[in-house]
């Protein structure tokens, strides 16, 4: 029986500079942060990051790992704006393809279904089309007959292109050794579509159980990622920190605040990077444990 268990280093070694990488989660929620942290010292460059943007986007853009971003927004949820992302944007340091978040969904869906585009009204009339001249429209082909809607005859719709990914990373509450995974929190976001749109499909998880064990972690209906969608499974406890990973843990608001405060100034950011982001994932988790102890005492 196939065993998809792997390591962060193995997953990163399969990437190369210039790739398009999808990152699951939403804003500051259930982001595969252990992977994002590893990408920071991967030596990779010129990545295109495709994300419902949270701290992943600001971190990778600011570090010069990403040169292009496809997103509808970047937010930390409880703190609306990420200072790293603001700085990168305000110094003109990134190529941003900004699309409506519903179009983004359709782009992933089109890639997962292997069709070149999916149509939508979203984006029509807005600067999404003006700023992204590569986006095209299609004309409704149904002009008569039983499928023609008189109100939409001649309608031009936006043709959202497939967002094909070289690799996708998502973080699950639990996975099994065969490559199935479960999101036991309130929202699976678009993670299944990120995996469906990608060549290399990687799931990090709070815990990895034996094949067939996900039904004991929670209702089987929450195990929406089956093994046809995955290549590598990596156990990364607390791996979404500091973003939320309900029901395992909430967003670490104290830490996120410290991140935002540090990121607002290059000097304090350097100190923060040295303390938290200089080493391995295990080093990071130790430093976080220390931070938590200090802030509680």
């Amino acid at each position, binding site marked *: 029986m196939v065993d998809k268990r792997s390591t962060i280093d193995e997953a990163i070694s399969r990437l190369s500079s210039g790739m398009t990488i999808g990152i699951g989660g939403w804003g500051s929620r259930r982001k595969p942060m252990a992977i994002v942290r590893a990408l920071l010292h991967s030596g990779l460059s010129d990545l295109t990051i495709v994300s419902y943007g949270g701290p992943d986007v600001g971190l990778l853009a600011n570090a010069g790992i990403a040169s292009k971003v496809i997103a509808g927004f970047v937010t930390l949820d409880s703190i609306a704006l990420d200072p790293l992302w603001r700085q990168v944007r305000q110094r003109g340091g990134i190529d941003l393809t900004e699309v*409506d978040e519903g179009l983004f969904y359709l782009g992933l869906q089109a890639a997962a279904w292997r069709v070149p585009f999916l149509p939508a009204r979203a984006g029509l*009339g807005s600067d999404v089309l003006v700023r992204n001249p590569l986006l095209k429209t299609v004309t409704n082909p149904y002009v008569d007959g039983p499928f023609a809607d008189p109100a939409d005859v001649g309608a031009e719709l936006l043709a959202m292109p497939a967002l094909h990914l070289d690799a996708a990373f998502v973080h699950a509450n639990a996975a099994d050794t065969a490559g199935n995974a479960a999101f036991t929190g309130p929202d699976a976001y678009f993670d299944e579509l990120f995996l469906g749109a990608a060549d290399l499909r990687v799931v990090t998880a709070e815990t990895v159980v034996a094949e067939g064990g996900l039904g004991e972690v929670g209702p089987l209906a929450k195990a929406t990622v089956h093994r046809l969608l995955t290549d590598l499974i990596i156990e990364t406890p607390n791996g979404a920190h500091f973003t939320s990973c309900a029901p395992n843990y909430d967003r670490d608001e104290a830490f996120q605040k410290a991140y935002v405060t540090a990121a607002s100034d290059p000097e304090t950011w350097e100190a923060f990077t040295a303390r938290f982001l200089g080493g391995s994932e295990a080093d990071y988790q130790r430093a976080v444990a220390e931070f938590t102890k200090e802030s509680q005492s």
Partner: protein
Amino acid sequence: MSPTRAEVCIAAISEVWRDAGEIMASPFGTIPMVASRLAKRTFSPDLVLTDGEAAIIVGAPPITTKPEDLVREASVPYKTIFSVVWSGRRHIVMQASQIDRFGNQNLSAIGPHNQPKVQLIGVRGAPGNSVNHKTSYWVPDHSTRTFVEAVDTVCGVGYDRAKNAGVGATRFHELPRVVSNLGVFDFSGPNNSMALVSVHPGVTVEEVVAATGFELHLGDVVETPGPTDEQLAIISEIDPKGAREREIKA
């Protein structure tokens, strides 16, 4: 006691959902959130409200209610929200960092898009919302910086841009209201341009005109009706700690 400006704004915003029936009300900001719950408790009991996360909630509880104390009736993760958006069964009240005469809205970035002066949150769902279902706006800081001749990036689509894009964009496009801390507006001016409907108590038409960076259509301008005593009591129940007063400058 006369209502505060925030309470006048709440009553005015709640009107966008009057007799709305069974649709999702999506408020952005404290004052719109209180307004949506006021509407549900009074004239639009069938409104569908969410917990801001991934579920529809029962009733219109105080905004101070802890997440664990909310009663939820259905699951609506993000992916399913787009089915609601594109079905049209929704009326959103978004905020605008900039809005222009025809209702184009910006929440992406101030200044040139490739190197903004101020990076904001991003286009989010504004392009899709505005061409798929009713979209109204709440602007808590009315000035010539927010009510501008032309927005820097068009996120929410205004009437002029929708018309240029054709029937695909206009079919379900409707911007019923703009409410600011100074007044209430609609798009009943020439060519669907912004018209001043009412000024809030204590505000003059001249003040609104001076704080607006484009020519407003001025028809019969009245005073914004404040909340009734009954509405005021409900507002205090929904927002017992007065969070509404912190969203606008006095």
